[in-house]
């Protein structure tokens, strides 16, 4: 048994290499000691810091700096919102989790945006307007996923940068909740390729005061090119029914997106006559879920529905489900689009086989017409498969560029209005419009299953 006494700050200099210290004055000693080692450590820390700096800020894709002063740092403390600099330069910013397990997905979104910009040579209005693009990271390594403090600081940064006229993001609805109000007051429009939480736009589908709490200025500034979860949760219920599920246990990750989608799935399942055995929120940082899975196993469900994402530990849940003996034949696993990515298959390995996921749209491979062409172009350009939302990011960038083309000057309010007024947009997802809430008119969804270590499209799902 180790025991200790309360001696801590005693000098004990007998063996200290940096001698020359008076043993009678412990306080000075410790500070001196700090100072002696401090310089080396500072250098070391600086080295680490510069390493981090270089890896976290991917080089801006459009290298052209606005007129003059190429040395001005964008991080300089913002004083006023105004001073847009060059009136002929506008900036699009993406706010996506470029750190943590969503990186793979987010990178293909960034690719989609860059692709859209490259097709127009980063110019608009016959070359009069130069479009810049900057990638903001809304995640931190410490959190491993999007981080509230980071989101807020990013939003303030965008507001302070006078050339920013449109934001493409977020990936997580919880992050959008924080940034929309900030951008709203500065008239910056946000076009989301992935946020599906209904309460962001639709009254009566989320919390009591939603969505108006997000729009303090009284005008709307948020649009999304992806259908919201009130559709996806319902579609999942229908699909489960058609797969022959009779008893389901529902889990959620206690986050905005995951809980929201489970909240829609639950009543739909009940309405369709599926017995809901229980509903539980999980700790997404737990190292395993064996106890919980044993509990669920004892109830004999046909399916576990998980409202959550790969980052909320879906891989571990699937592994533990199989670990305690729920076989893929006996118990299905279904989740929303948040798990429909390669990262989940990497995490769950062979246990991912046979799991189901709905997706708020068609997977890239299933797009037709302009979408099919986009898919080939993407693969040729990046030599990789796009993840689920890449097409949506591309579409969002196209919407932003279209609005800039209409306005032809650095005017946030006018561009916001132009985006919200998008009607009969002919893009890679088909022809669609934004409604008054900023929601897309598209409702086609798809069901997917993992087969042979890959996501495979099963069928298109329609809301009944």
């Amino acid at each position, binding site marked *: 048994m180790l025991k200790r006494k309360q001696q801590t700050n005693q000098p004990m200099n007998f063996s200290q290499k940096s001698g020359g210290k008076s043993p009678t004055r412990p306080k000075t000693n410790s500070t001196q000691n700090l100072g002696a080692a401090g310089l080396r450590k500072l250098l070391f820390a600086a080295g680490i810091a510069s390493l981090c700096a270089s890896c976290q800020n991917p080089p801006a894709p459009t290298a052209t700096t606005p007129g003059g002063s190429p040395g001005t740092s964008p991080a300089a403390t913002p004083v006023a919102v105004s001073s847009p600099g060059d009136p002929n330069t506008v900036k699009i910013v993406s706010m996506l989790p470029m750190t943590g397990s969503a990186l793979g997905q987010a990178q293909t979104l960034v690719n989609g945006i860059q692709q859209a910009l490259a097709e127009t040579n980063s110019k608009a209005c016959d070359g009069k307007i130069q479009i810049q693009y900057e990638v903001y990271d809304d995640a931190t*390594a410490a959190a491993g996923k999007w981080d509230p403090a980071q989101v807020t600081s990013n939003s303030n940064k965008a507001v302070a940068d006078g050339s920013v006229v449109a934001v493409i993001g977020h990936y997580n609805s919880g992050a959008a909740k924080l940034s929309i109000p900030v951008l709203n007051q500065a008239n910056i429009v946000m076009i989301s390729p992935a946020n599906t939480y209904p309460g962001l736009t639709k009254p009566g589908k989320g919390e009591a005061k939603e969505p108006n709490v997000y729009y303090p200025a009284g005008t709307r500034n948020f649009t999304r090119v992806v259908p919201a979860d009130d559709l996806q949760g319902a579609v999942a219920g229908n699909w489960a029914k058609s797969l022959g599920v009779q008893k389901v246990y529902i889990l959620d990750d206690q986050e905005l997106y995951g809980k929201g989608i489970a909240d829609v799935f639950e009543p739909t399942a009940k309405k369709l006559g599926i017995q809901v055995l229980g509903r539980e929120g999980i700790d997404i940082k737990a190292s395993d879920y064996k106890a919980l899975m044993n509990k669920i196993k004892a109830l004999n469900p046909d399916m576990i529905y998980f409202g959550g994402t790969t980052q909320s530990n879906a891989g571990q849940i699937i592994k533990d489900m199989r670990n305690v003996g729920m076989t893929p034949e006996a118990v299905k696993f279904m989740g929303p689009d948040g798990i429909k990515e390669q990262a989940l298959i990497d995490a769950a390995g062979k246990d991912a086989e046979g799991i189901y996921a709905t997706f708020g749209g068609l997977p890239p491979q299933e797009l037709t017409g302009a979408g099919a062409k986009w898919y080939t172009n993407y693969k040729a350009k990046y030599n990789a498969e796009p993840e689920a939302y890449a097409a949506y990011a591309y579409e969002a960038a196209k919407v932003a560029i279209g609005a800039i083309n209409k306005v032809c000057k650095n005017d946030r309010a006018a561009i916001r209005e132009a985006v919200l007024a998008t009607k009969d947009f002919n893009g890679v997802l088909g022809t669609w419009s934004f409604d008054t809430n900023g929601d897309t008119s598209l409702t086609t969804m798809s069901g997917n299953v993992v087969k042979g270590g890959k996501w495979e499209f099963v069928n298109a799902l329609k809301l009944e």
Partner: protein
Amino acid sequence: MKNWKSILLYLGVVYIVLLLGPIAGFDLPKIVGEIVSSPEVFIQQLLVGLVNGALIAIIALGYTMVYGIIELINFAHGDLYMLGAFASLTVFGAFGMQDGAPLGIAIPVMLVALIVCSVFCAGLNIVVEKYAYRPLRNAPRLAPLISAIGVSFIFQNMGLFWGGLKAFIPVMGSNSAAPKSFPDLLPRVDIFKALGIQTSIVFTTKDLIVLVVAVVLMVLLHVFVQYTRLGKAMRATAQSRDAAKIMGINVDQIIALTFLIGGALAGSAGILVGLYNNTIVFTMGFTAGLRAFTAAVLGGIGNIVGAMLGGVLIGLLSSLSDQYLSSRWTNAWVFGVLVVILAFRPGGLLGENVQEKV
């Protein structure tokens, strides 16, 4: 005055318990009814809790040893364990191990991996001790603590970087920061079924192996500290560094040894958890570290047997809470119990009653 304060503290604790109980679905008659009607489920959850607790305990040992000897809460320890898991996954990848590889090949590879990642973590821990903690040993208590948090961040980023080396280590999968699939190598024979006992309780050889390895590691450590010369030197150093030095003990070496053993244990925990849970992720060190730290405090920090006891207690508590209350509230219960125990026994279950400031 002191009495008045402690009464207030007890009231606070009672208030927390009363507040948490009903929200978290704490309904004693119902729970007792469930246990009586299906005791097998209860035993099953005890087993799950026991194995998880043993794993927590191994990590907790690293915290408690370091605290015992230099009174530093080594926040980097959880992340060291994460790096151990990454190291073992890399070894398995190098040998081309996959799910369900034949035991004849898997066992030697597991031993190699165990040795490699124990040595790796031990070495890393010694380096960290030398460059991040030793220069601050006589500094105010806060300095090494912050240094430890810094090291924890460095380790986490090392894990993140490591996961991105998929070009060299294909087992890391396609995405740098996603959870990694860990090969499922341990045999999974249902022990009760093999013995011919008719029951719905599932206890596989996999659980047993993990439990046995954990217990063996803990016993070895206990024996080492209690009955060897070096162990004696460690205890002496923990008691009084000055006196130990006068007695001719090389205190720096003994402290390095403590970090070596702690690192080796973290490495073994990494490979064990990988083999047991079959998923590892670069952020797993933080949660595991927090739980292990709680276990160490619960048992009485600085006390090796206490760390084991605390680990098992936390494991049991969380599995039972998952079953009979709600997984939503498991963490609240774990830390609630910690609050209660610290309120009544500030030194932890097996610790001494010493006032500490951190």
